Each structure stands twice: as C-alpha cells, then as structure tokens.
C-alpha cells in the first residue's frame, strides 16, 4: 500500500523538522517528505490521509512497558498490549522481563519476538533480565539474549541488591553494547511501605516509603557508572533528589540517562486519598515539589525520555486492601495526551522537545534505529489532533486491564492514526 499524508504539521525532532508538509509512504518506508510530491503513479492503490490541522510525528517509542505474556495472560497479552500501544500512537515498545518464566534466556526472548510477529500490532523489543530469574544471584546469559534480540537488560522491579553483581553486569553488558536499565529501590529502606512517605501516608495511616529508598540506589548506579566508565539508564525517576543527582552526574560527564513516566509529572500522592489503588505504583506518587522537579528535569534535558511503565493488572488485584494491591497502572493510551496537556499545552516545554523524549531519545538509548521520519526509514508514524479536548474513558481502553487513575480526565492530544511499517493500524481513532 502507498500512503500520502497530506497537509499535516510534520514534527520530526531527529531531523529538526517542524513544518506543514506531506509525507509519502511507499513499500513500507518513508519515501519522501515534501510539499510537491509526485505520487501520481498509475495502477497502484493510494490511500490519502488528510492531516490538515493535525500533527504528524514519528511513531512513539516506549522504552518501558509490561506485556505480561508469557505467564500473566489474564492481565495482558502481546496481542492486547500491542493493540493498546497502537491506540496510544506507539509503534515500538520495549517490554520488561518480569514474565513467567522470566525473560532470562534466549528461548524466552525468541518466544516473545515470534509471538509479537504473529499477533503484535506494533514492533516489540524484549528487555532481558540482568540476573537469572531476576533473583539477584547470578548473571543471566546476557550475550545470548543480546544475540536473540534483547535491546537492554534490567531486573525491572527488583533492584540488583548486591553492588558487586551490578558492577559486573554493567561491565559485562557494555562489552555486548547492551543498555542496562536500573529500577532504583532499596528494599531495606522501603521497610514494607506502600505509598510515598509524607503527609498523605500519615493522614491515611499507611506505611510510607522514603524518597531515600529510590535516591540511594540512583546514587549508587551513578557512582558505579562513573567509576567504571560505563553507561546506566535510570528507570522512572520520581523524586526531586533523584533528578538532582542525575543532573549533577550528567554535568560531570557520567554516562547516565533516565526516563520518567506521565504519572510522575501529572499526579501527586493526593491521588491516593480514599485508598485509591489505581493511584498505587512503584515508585509511588510523590509530592508537589517532586512533580515540579520532574517537570524541570524534562525541560532542562536532565530527563531524556518519557516512558509509560504500562503495567496492566486484573481488577481483583486492585479491588482489595491498599497495601495488598498490585503496583502500577496502564499507560499506553494516555501517555501522549498527558504529556501534551501537562507539558506542552501548559507551556513547560516546546512540542518538539516533548516528542523527542517519546521518539528518538528512547530509541537511541536502546539503539533501535527508530523514532524518526527520515527518508527510507521504516514508515512508523502517528498522527494526533492536539486541539480537541476529550474525556478519558478507561473502560474503552484496548488494554485487557483498565487500572488507570485518569478516568474522567479532560485532555488534549487525541490519536487519529497509527502507521506501522507502512500499514495503517489505527485509522481515525479506530483500531483496525
């Protein structure tokens, strides 16, 4: 199929492009970007998308999500998860290894890649575990996983507790040119807490988690990266202190990158009031000063990427006592509108910079070669309407799970089209 996207505002941060123009897609790749495209070829089907008044951007890249397959198909599958991603404008997503079995060997990596090829609606890139079974004891077969197709390694929600083992992982992974992602959480400091430690934990009578639990591990990873001169990527930064540690490290030239998630720049711990388990995540929602710091970190470039941490859970895992509820929220279908509404529409950062953090930046941290509209690149494109305000209805999500604190939110940045490899996956907001 050939597609002509006409008259949209094309924003491609990688190529410093932001202007109203057309895009011609042929044979699955971006064939041409320009205003006087000669597309009148006889006898070949042409789909014309009128993008006037819309923005046309590289398909979004999510460097941190949970697809739950294999093992937790009751929460999400590769099929439903990628459908949800497509409905969020994501065309490339990297999934965390906390499946059952854990993605800690080449066989599971291959399974996921094959399964995604069969039923996936977008590109799926597995992230392998750092240690076997995410148990923090022995290194997983990082080299074999890399050759099978992982784009990074991470023990996801389980910080590698032993700093010597983490050091070895970082050095070993560097040899295979593999990004190491660290979920920073000192379980001794967590002490069984289930939300941010602050006024709201006192008010609700719930055990809080000090920010230090996140920050001491961020500091440790920075020290390891600096001392050993290797890279590290910090997952879902949520605190003011964490942003500051990374900002200082970057100034010194440490090879550190980081991401945050929309919930850390849109919500505070107040969302937990009423024991709202849909506002329970890890790291927990923090306070106003942290939200401000995360926004500033995004604005000044300290924070490289916006990831979803899409974490689907069954309703029974949320409809229970707060301390027992599962951590995490679904994120694909609200990520772009939240980022647009809270960062761009509110004047914190230019649209192009926000899109950079959802496309080329995460793609380059993982080495995907995605996230641009360069000519001859695979045609992964998303088209959004950033003017029309709409209401979030979590019940309409394509994800198998609906655990989101954003039900009823009024946002801007509605998805119109998602194109993957030159195929239209979402058309006029409807999943095909």
């Amino acid at each position, binding site marked *: 199929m050939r597609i002509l996207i006409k008259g949209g505002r094309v924003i491609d941060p990688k190529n410093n492009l932001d202007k109203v123009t057309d895009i011609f897609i042929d044979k699955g790749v971006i064939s041409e970007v320009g205003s006087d495209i000669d597309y009148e070829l006889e006898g070949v089907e042409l789909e014309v998308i009128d993008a006037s008044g819309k923005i046309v951007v590289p398909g979004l890249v999510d460097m941190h999500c949970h697809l739950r397959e294999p093992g937790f198909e009751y929460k999400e599958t590769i099929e439903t998860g990628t459908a949800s991603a497509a409905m969020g404008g994501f065309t490339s997503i990297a999934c965390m290894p906390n499946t059952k079995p854990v993605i800690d060997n080449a066989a599971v990596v291959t399974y996921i890649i094959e399964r995604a090829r069969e039923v996936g609606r977008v590109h799926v890139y597995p992230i392998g575990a750092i240690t076997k079974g995410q148990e923090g004891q022995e290194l997983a077969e990082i080299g074999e996983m890399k050759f099978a197709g992982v784009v990074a390694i991470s023990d996801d929600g389980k910080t590698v507790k032993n700093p010597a083992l983490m050091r070895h992982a970082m050095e070993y992974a560097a040899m295979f040119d593999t990004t190491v992602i660290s979920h920073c959480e000192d379980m001794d400091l967590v002490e069984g807490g289930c939300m941010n430690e602050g006024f709201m934990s006192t*008010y609700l*009578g719930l055990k809080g988690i000090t920010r230090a639990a996140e920050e001491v591990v961020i500091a440790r990873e920075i020290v390891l990266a600096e001392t050993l001169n290797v890279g590290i990527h910090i997952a879902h930064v949520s605190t003011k202190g964490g942003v500051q540690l990374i900002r200082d490290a970057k100034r010194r030239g440490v090879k550190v990158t980081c991401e945050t998630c929309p919930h850390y720049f849109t919500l505070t711990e107040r969302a937990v009031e009423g*024991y709202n388990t849909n506002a329970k995540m890890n790291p927990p929602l923090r306070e106003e000063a942290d939200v401000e710091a995360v926004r500033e970190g995004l604005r000044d470039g300290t924070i490289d990427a916006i990831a979803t941490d899409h974490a689907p859970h069954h309703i029974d895992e949320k409809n229970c006592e707060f*301390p*027992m509820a599962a951590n995490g929220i679904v994120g694909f279908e609200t990520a772009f509108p939240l980022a647009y509404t809270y960062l761009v529409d509110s004047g914190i950062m230019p649209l192009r910079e926000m899109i950079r953090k959802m496309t080329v930046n995460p793609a380059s941290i993982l080495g995907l070669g995605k996230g641009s509209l360069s000519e001859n690149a695979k045609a992964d494109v998303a088209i959004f309407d950033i003017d029309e305000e709409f209401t979030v209805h979590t019940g309409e999500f394509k994800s198998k799970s609906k655990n989101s604190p954003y039900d009823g939110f009024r946002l801007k940045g509605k998805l119109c089209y998602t194109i993957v490899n030159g195929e239209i996956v979402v058309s006029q907001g409807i999943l095909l």
Partner: protein
Amino acid sequence: MKRDLLGLKGVSAAEIEAILKGAARMKYNLLHQNKKAPHLQGKSVVTLFYENSTRTRLSFEMAGKYLGAAVGNISASSSSVQKGETLIDTVKTIDAMAADVIVIRHPMGGAPALAAKHAKAAIVNAGDGMNEHPTQALLDMFTIQEKKGHIDGLKVAILGDIAHSRVARSNIYGLKTMGAQVSVGGPVTLMPPDIEKLGVSVFNSVQEAMIDADVIIGLRLQLERQKSGLFPSMREYSRFFGVDDRRLRFAKPDALVLHPGPVNRGVEYTSSVIDGEQSCINEQVTNGVAVRMAVLNILTGRNLQDADLN
C-alpha cells in the same frame, strides 16, 4: 443511606456530641444493673477480627449483648488476609447472613472503608492498621468529658509511638473537632511525617508535650518496634519517654492519665502512675462498653431522635 463509623476524620462535633450523650445514658444503665436493654433486640452484630484482640472485641461483644443483639464472632488470622478469602467476599458472606453491623479490625489502613463499599451492613472500624480506632478515641473523649465536664479548650498530650498509632490519629481528629488543643510527644523515629499538618504541636520530649496538660494519653509501645530499629531498648525508652511521678508533674496537678491498654508497666507509665489517683485507665474500660453500646444503637437506626451519625 447506610451509616458506618469508619473513623473520626470528617465527623462533626454534633455527631460526636450525640454519641457521647448516648454513651452517658448507656453507662447509667450499665451501672444500674440493666444489662438486658431492648435497643438492639432483633438485630445482629458480627465482629470480624483480623488481628488478635481481647479487650476491644469483648467490649463490642458485651455492648451488643447488653442491648439484646445476637452477636457472632469471626477470627481470621493475619495470614489469612494474604491467602484465604478476600475481605470483600468475607464481608459479602456475613452480609448474606443478614448481619446489621459488622465490626472490623484489620491490620491494613482503609480495610473497613473497602468493606463498607461492598456491605449492606453498617461497618464499625475497630482499628485498621495505623489509620483509625474511632471507638477508642470516643471512649477517651467520653472519659475526659465526664471528668472535666467539657473537652473544648483543654490541653491534651498524646505520648509515645504516634507513628504506628491509630488511637493517636482518631484522638487527634476527634479532640481537634471538639475544640481541644493537642500536642504529641515521642522519639523522632516514632513520629509520622508532617503530623503537624493535622494541627498538633510536635515535641521530641514528653515533658515538653505535657507542660500544663489537662489530659495525658500514653500509647502502648510494641516490642517489635525495637526489632525494627526504631528505639534501642525498653530500658532506654522508659528513661527518656516514659512517664513517672516526677515527669507527671509537668502536667497540671489534676491532669487525667489515660491509656488505651494493655499497659506495659514500667515502660509508658510507671506502676505508680498507672495505679495513682490521676489514673482513669480502669474506668476507660467501662466507658468503652458504654460508648460502643451508643455507637451500635445509633448505627442500627433506632432512636434516631437521639443522634444522627452522618
């Protein structure tokens, strides 16, 4: 609309007043050997406890029985919270047996609120994690009002492990609503973050918290806090944060000494304070039954002219 007693957070002074008034009548009955009152005849009360408790549970049970209710008890071990039937399912099961009131104690904050969303029966919170223990605070306030004639304008010091205490939180909400001035005193490791935002003065010295107090409420110290590294030893705790006769003199000479029990003798209070003239600790237990009778009576909807909770 079903009425529950989930906490004192957000409960008005008029509502608290109504319960205390009801409790006064119940206490009169109790002390005059009328322990088969008809208020709850034909009603049923079930206690559902996920934590060990003897006094609170017995207090609710006696309160129900003294008013003529059928009372049933379910004990679920804390481990069954993790494994067995969900709280929602358990509550629905009790509901299906036509219970009018379910009294819940649970190790996690917010559990009674969750139960209330799914139950037709009225839910009474008998202590949820570190959140609230409203009937304890009501019986404390009842005791204070009985002895002092009023709560408004009094200075109340709450001492000890504030961080883990649902008794402290319910008392803070209730006492503040009733116009008392509240100070809290205890080691920094047992003080919850931003507690001053609840409108209390915070001290890391019990003496300072107690200065000119009309009432002191010592909180029970759990040994497990020592194991979590929050204080070094009972010995050191009692030396710096326990109340003895000498330290008691920082409060007003006629200050009331309260404690939710059970007391660790020689830790929160010395025996001389526990057994001293200012102590109301035993009377609190009687008042607890009276307050719970009043609460059950109000929640089961009889005598609406007496009181309206929400």
